[in-house]
């Protein structure tokens, strides 16, 4: 048996078993899911071999499965996060119904993602892509009732994306007569890109939907926010990365490497399109995505939704980096892709823990959980620091590489846009920490306790990873450099804990971490020892409110309209949202469709008239129709 088949068999088999076993015990189903992912992970990494390709034929097409170094990088995300998320879900989902259904789709999702990464041909890529889509759809609507609109939106956009991709794939097949990705790349390298731009644009649309690129992102916030958090960590962390994976192939293998000196236009509607143009468009779309995602994130009152918008913004960075395509930018983008999986996975898990323990993640309803859930708070804090890109945690490395990649390659205004986004990101980063963990301790949350240990372990592991990668990004640079060799960047130079740009400037992260931790620890020791006896904890009700003693019923929590002045300052940007535009389109289409179906009047005579009219028209125009 082959590694790939075995891995998929374990995952899909695990899916079916955990579906079946749900009747026996609610815990068992989760445990089976965890065992399945864990064993698949272990088995996979014991037998991983990038040169091993499997070929077989189905339905008259040649299929090829294998691993390249790029997909190997993404398997870390999928399997790593998948294992942790299943472990997390055992307790998180404990009191919910339909666990078999949940884990079935969960494992199906992981399996199909692995399938996508194994696929070296477009058609199995697409098949797994679709399985991933509908299995994730089924989880998006898992919570029932109000999620169905979200689910449909998700499915519509996924459908648009997937079918754009399918269209491109069949066009590719018509050209190349083969579904193999490698063949297509070869073909493009021989004949050039001219005449194939439509295929590439469609592929970008297809992958763009999953990675929530700007005009196609509207499904994401609610879909992320409304699935069970155990899955959302995977959804936002790994599933969206499949779009990034696809985009990195399209933008880098296809667009970047073969556009040298080429400027042939497609003609007609696509006059003037060339590879550079597409890349610029994608860059700007990515940057706008980042900005808008951030701006909408800081408006949210629900932590989950906030994080969902933040995910969109982060994916915007990644896509911009990929579209820029210089070595540093790509490295930064891939680094951020992995890091985003880690910290966003941890964050969603933490929010899940809050939701499970406190009943909601609506920041207007809860606050002051830091004493109740200290570990969850630490995880959130570290992940947020990583997300904000503040050294010494991992997010900084990715952002640094990205910025340097942009500056050194001359994308100055893009840098400013991205920078604006990431500065504004501080706002929502603070919001989520403050809204849930800090502030007044509310009486509603008095009985909240820390999440169970099996939920904390995955979260803490991820949080520690952000720290490790912040000081020793080289651990991650190695697979990234390998991956980049697959998409055409050979001899990527990297060091264990130093990042440097093409101008020769560098940041030594070990020095950074050393300084920060030393100073921090010295300060901490000083501050803690000094006046140790005089230092006391008081409750959050004991604050200086003009000499008043706030009573239980007095609301001292500041949560609503949190960034109202800022929102006022950027009000013009909120005026038009894609949501509104799509709603308008949807409503007009609805009206049109309603109008169209009145053709079927219900009167049999009218139908008979149609027949006669059709016949007469045909007979009159027969010469022009036939001939």
């Amino acid at each position, binding site marked *: 048996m082959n590694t790939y088949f075995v891995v998929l068999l374990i995952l899909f088999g695990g899916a079916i078993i955990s579906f079946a076993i749900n009747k026996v015990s609610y815990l068992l189903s989760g445990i089976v899911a965890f065992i399945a992912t864990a064993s698949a992970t272990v088995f996979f990494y014991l037998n991983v071999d990038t040169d091993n390709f499997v070929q077989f034929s189905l339905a008259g097409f040649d299929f090829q499965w294998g691993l390249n170094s790029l997909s190997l990088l993404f398997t870390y995300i999928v399997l790593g996060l998948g294992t942790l998320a299943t472990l997390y879900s055992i307790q998180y989902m404990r009191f919910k119904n339909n666990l078999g259904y949940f884990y079935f789709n969960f494992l199906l999702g992981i399996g199909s993602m692995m399938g996508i990464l194994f696929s070296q041909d477009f058609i199995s890529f697409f098949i797994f892509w679709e399985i991933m889509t509908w299995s994730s759809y089924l989880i998006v609507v898992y919570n029932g009732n109000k999620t169905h609109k979200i689910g449909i939106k998700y499915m519509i956009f996924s459908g648009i994306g997937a079918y754009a991709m399918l*269209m491109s794939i069949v066009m590719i097949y018509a050209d190349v007569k083969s579904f193999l990705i490698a063949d297509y790349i070869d073909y493009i390298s021989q004949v050039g890109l001219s005449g194939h731009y439509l295929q590439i644009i469609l592929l970008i649309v297809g992958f763009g939907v999953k990675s929530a690129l700007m005009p196609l992102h509207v499904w994401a916030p609610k879909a992320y926010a409304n699935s069970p958090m155990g899955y959302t960590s995977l959804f936002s962390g790994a599933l969206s990365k499949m779009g990034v994976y696809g985009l990195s192939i399209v933008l880098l293998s296809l667009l970047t490497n073969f556009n040298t000196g080429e400027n042939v236009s497609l003609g007609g509607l696509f006059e003037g399109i060339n590879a550079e143009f597409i890349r610029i468009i994608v860059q700007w779309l990515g940057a706008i995505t980042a900005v808008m995602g951030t701006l909408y994130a800081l408006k949210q009152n629900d932590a989950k939704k906030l994080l969902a918008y933040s995910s969109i913004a982060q994916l915007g960075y990644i896509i911009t980096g990929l579209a820029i395509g210089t070595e540093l930018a790509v490295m930064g983008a891939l680094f951020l892709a992995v890091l985003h999986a880690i910290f966003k996975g941890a964050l969603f898990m933490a929010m899940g823990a809050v939701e499970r323990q406190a009943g909601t993640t609506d920041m207007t309803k809860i606050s002051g959980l830091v004493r109740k859930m200290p570990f969850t708070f630490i995880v959130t804090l570290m992940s947020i620091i990583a997300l904000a890109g503040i050294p010494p945690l991992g997010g900084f490395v990715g952002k640094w590489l990205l910025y340097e990649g942009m500056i050194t390659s001359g994308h100055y205004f893009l840098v400013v846009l991205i920078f604006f986004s990431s500065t504004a990101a501080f706002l929502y980063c603070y919001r989520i920490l403050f809204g849930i963990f800090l502030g007044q301790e509310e009486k509603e949350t008095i009985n909240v306790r820390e999440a169970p240990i099996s939920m904390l372990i995955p979260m803490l592991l991820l949080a520690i990873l952000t720290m490790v990668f912040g000081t020793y990004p080289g651990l991650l640079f190695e697979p990234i450099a390998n991956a980049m060799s697959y998409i055409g960047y050979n001899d990527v130079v990297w060091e264990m804990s130093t990042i440097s740009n093409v101008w020769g400037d560098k940041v030594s992260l070990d020095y950074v971490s050393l300084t920060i931790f030393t100073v921090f620890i010295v300060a901490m020791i000083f501050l803690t020892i000094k006046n140790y006896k005089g230092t006391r904890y008081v409750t959050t009700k004991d604050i200086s409110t003009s000499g008043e003693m706030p009573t239980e019923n007095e609301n001292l929590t500041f949560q609503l309209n949190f960034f109202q002045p800022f929102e006022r300052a950027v009000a013009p940007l909120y005026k038009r949202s894609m949501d509104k535009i799509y709603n308008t389109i949807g409503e007009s289409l609805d009206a049109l469709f309603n109008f169209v179906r009145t053709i079927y009047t219900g009167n049999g005579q009218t139908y008979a008239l149609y027949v006669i009219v059709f016949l007469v028209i045909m007979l009159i125009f027969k010469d022009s129709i036939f001939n």
Partner: protein
Amino acid sequence: MVISPVHYIAVPLLAAFVIPLFAKLNREFVRIIPGIVLLYLSYVSIVLMNQVSSTGTISEVLAGWAPPFGINLVFSAFSGFLASLMTFMGLVIWIYSYRFKKIDDEPALKFYVLFLMLITGAIGIVLTGDIFNLFVFLEIVGISAYSLTSFYRNRDGAEAGFKYLLLGAFASTLILLGIILLYSSIGTLNMADIAQKSHLIPTSLKVSIFILFVVGFGIEAEMFPLNGWAPDAYSQAPGPVGAAFSGIAVKAGMYVIIRLIYTLFDIEGSFQFLIVMGLITTIIAEVSAMKQTNLKRMLAYSSIGQMGIVMVAFGIGTREAIIAGLFLMLNHAIIKGLLFLSSSYLVYNDDNKLISSLSGLGKRLPLVSFLFALGAFAIVGLPPFSGFWSRLYLLLAAADKELIYLIAIILIIAVIEIVYYFRVINKLYFKDIKVKSDDVQKPSINAVISMSILGILIIAIGIYPDLVTSYLGNAADALLDKAGYIENVLVDINN
């Protein structure tokens, strides 16, 4: 007994008329005989399909008159495929309706007689080699279909039946007119002979005849402006009948149009015409399906849309496209069959068959809902279900001919399908339960079996499409081999 294609027509027809006699002996015979007949026909299908794949097309002369004078049956890989498909669907529907309560309430006898006649007629259309005979079979299909549509003696059933009848009668008038013109110009009714001689007809007349035929059979095949009957008939007919329409009756109409274009007439532009009509049909139907509140009606529009796509596939006309078209037909039969069969349990007690009444039924009827969802997944073309492959084949065929707009439209339509099918799935599973558990009808065991057969088939073909692709290839070859067809009918038998 030598197995020959005649059995396809003789046995069910005979059975249809014998059933009332046996019913006098024991009521149970009414139900059992159709099953035996269909099982036998399935056996015939298997034998004949094997024979066809080894020895080629089988032509059977009836009543000893050699073609072009006598009536003959042609069991080629193409027509055989469709006949087998119909038989199979007939069998599945029989299993389903064996104890279908609503049919039991009404006189089951009539149902089975009409049902067998429907199958006879449809298979006759597919197999016959004589165009007037085809007309007769069409009328058999028609009359039994009208009656089945208004099988429930309620208000709307009668209305739907009457509309169907009105258009059907129109169709037969037009077809008869076409036959008259055809006969008056070349003096033959044998299809192979017509194919041989069609170049003798003046082009203008030929085109007129073609148009008459297309319009006539287009009514049966649900082509756009002619399909006003379809949503009503589908929505008002009993559940199994809806499945039978989409799996059997419509296929027959489609078969004729394909024959007309591929074999009988050689008219320039007819392929493009088919593509355009298919697209219009699909677009209008899917768009109409979008806002339906009636589940059956939605399925009906979806069915029309699917047939439009089949038309498109055959309009492209390459071998790959024909394979795609046949695959689409197969998928349409089994998937839409499954959808109709399962949906009739979902809206069992709701006379208006409202989608909103499905709310939360997934909890009450888990298996039926699951199968419905499976069907919905398959019909919108999600892998790894069978619907995906047919759509892929079609797209590849279109891409091969560089019909990019076509791909785009088909895929946009697929998105529309996603919208309305997933709306139903959402209703089924992710809404609060409204229905009391007493109000739902649990499916009987035979219904479960029949639906499961279809469900398993959907998954099996989806995972391993090679199950059917070889048959499809043969069928496509047979359809494209016009000379072979003529030779087979006229030469081989004359010798």
